[in-house]
């Protein structure tokens, strides 16, 4: 097994090339944001006959990605630097990058290839890692997990493929000399970590208030550099992204029978108390 994994060395950015800004502590950073175009989060998800999620034009930038875009923009505004949004997906996925560009991201990259249909987490990570390593970056940001797939593993897999540090579930990040100071949500509360550059981090929902694109931003987005890449452009072949997972059976879960819905008057409250008593919890 050990022989067939793929590793991508990544060039480290040189601290020398970074001009110091007026604050004296921040430096320009190149930041990558991984974004995903997901089916309308308010809609009802559907599975096609091929057992893949139906992905149509009705979709949006994953709401969980807005926080990462916002964090990248704030860091670039404070210290200078460039933010690149990278996505993988069908033609419609371009809309996710366009939203990020309209928010203020400087350039976009869309990887589209027929052989990526049904890509699993490892294939997705290989593609995103290959796209990210085309330029030197200090920080790559993603959401904790996508709203449609909830896999939650792609960003750390990308970090390992690129041989860089990572911190997941980040609610706060600031540059700290050559490192980052990062607050990470934990089951007990939160941890503070020191993370070397370059790094991949995942940002929790609620870490900030993602901005809405302004009219000016939407117009400017159309002029911004946007690259469309295929697998071949990334130097990958179809075998590298062949999914190792396939759905073999689909079962409709028996719907849970609803009970009574009643008005919250004294009789309703009395019924609730009775239910607690029947459950022997009071």
């Amino acid at each position: 097994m050990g022989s067939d994994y793929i590793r991508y060395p990544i060039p480290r950015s040189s601290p020398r090339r970074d001009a110091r800004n007026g604050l004296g502590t921040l430096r320009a950073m190149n930041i990558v944001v991984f974004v995903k175009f997901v089916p309308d989060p308010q809609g009802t998800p559907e599975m096609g006959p091929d057992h893949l999620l139906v992905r149509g034009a009705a979709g949006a930038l994953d709401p969980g990605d807005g926080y990462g875009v916002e964090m990248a923009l704030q860091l670039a505004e404070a210290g200078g630097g460039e933010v690149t949004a990278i996505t993988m997906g069908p033609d419609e996925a371009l809309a996710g990058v366009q939203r990020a560009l309209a928010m203020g991201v400087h350039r976009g990259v869309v990887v589209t290839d027929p052989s990526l249909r049904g890509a699993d987490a490892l294939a997705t990570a290989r593609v995103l890692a290959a796209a990210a390593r085309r330029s030197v970056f200090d920080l790559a940001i993603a959401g904790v997990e996508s709203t449609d797939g909830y896999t939650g593993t792609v960003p750390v897999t990308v970090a390992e493929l690129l041989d860089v540090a990572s911190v997941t579930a980040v609610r706060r990040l600031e540059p700290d000399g050559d490192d980052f100071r990062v607050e990470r949500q934990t089951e007990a509360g939160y941890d503070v970590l020191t993370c070397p550059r370059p790094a991949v981090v995942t940002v929790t929902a609620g870490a900030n208030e993602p901005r809405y694109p302004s009219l000016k931003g939407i117009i400017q987005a159309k002029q911004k550099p946007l690259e469309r890449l295929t697998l071949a452009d990334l130097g990958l072949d179809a075998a590298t992204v062949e999914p190792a997972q396939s759905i073999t059976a689909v079962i409709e879960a028996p719907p849970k029978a609803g009970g009574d819905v009643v008005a919250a008057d004294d009789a309703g409250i009395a019924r609730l108390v009775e239910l607690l008593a029947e459950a022997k919890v009071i």
Partner: protein
Amino acid sequence: MAVWVYAPMTPEGPHPAAFELVTKARSLGDEVGAVAFGPGADDGAEPLGAHGATTVYVSDDSVFTDHPGRPAAHVLRRLIDEHRPSLVLFPATYDARDVAGRLQALTGSTLMSNATDVLAIDRARTEIFGGTTIVDVALGGPAPHLVLVRPRSFAAEPAGGTVQVVVVDASVEDGLKGARVVERHAETAAGPKLEEAKVVVAGGRGLGGPEPFALLDSLASAIGGAAVGASRAAVDAGWVPYSYQIGQTGKSVKPDVYLAVGISGALQHIVGMKGSARIVAINKDAEAPILKMADLGLVGDLFDIVPKLTAAIASRKLAV
């Protein structure tokens, strides 16, 4: 055919879900290995063995807690190269997810998230679309298959038997250690643990702010032995800490009674509580999805209902 379980260490010992996975692993392979890394791992070997692990690979090294994810993935990869298990199960916690995610880059083997059952060494089950659809997934590619399993998918059952403890070389070169923890902050609530409480009272967006959670605290203490939780919306808004969160990204609970207060019932949330024996919902919106799955739904203003309910429970307890 060896099936392994990655057992994340907590200050109280191996994560409870590790015992569930070891129990399940007994039915999947003839050898059951467990891997426990971090301070306390030595002492964790015995209970893991008692649940059916035949071999436990341990290291007490603090590198695993000082540097989350990366050292564990590299040391685990060395063990896998040496012993070649067919399947490695991980509890779906943030920390274990980081280890598994790193590991799939190193082994090139496939990683499945959010499994609710493991059917064979090459097949697992998950629920999608908020639990309305169950899918079976075949796992291919190089061994070992890696599967992240939602906690509380199986019951933990002691098995007895003897366990072989193997102390693992934890050396990792500095360049592979990654981010380092410099401070830890606990924000854990008082009262019983969410996953263990017989009653869970959970609040959502309908509470409108952090203060109304005091109403839920009062209700929980009137019931007695109840824990207070929250939906992702309330946690994202910063009203209560992440340790309260119930749902896909938070904890899974299966109490005797689940009381959803001001929670609409997003798919994200339902995944974490639908296994509850009884579900009660209090919501001002008669169309809220949570009411469709509740055994009893009360439609009205929670700021009116919750204090009345608390008083009614307290007076019933006095009367009995």
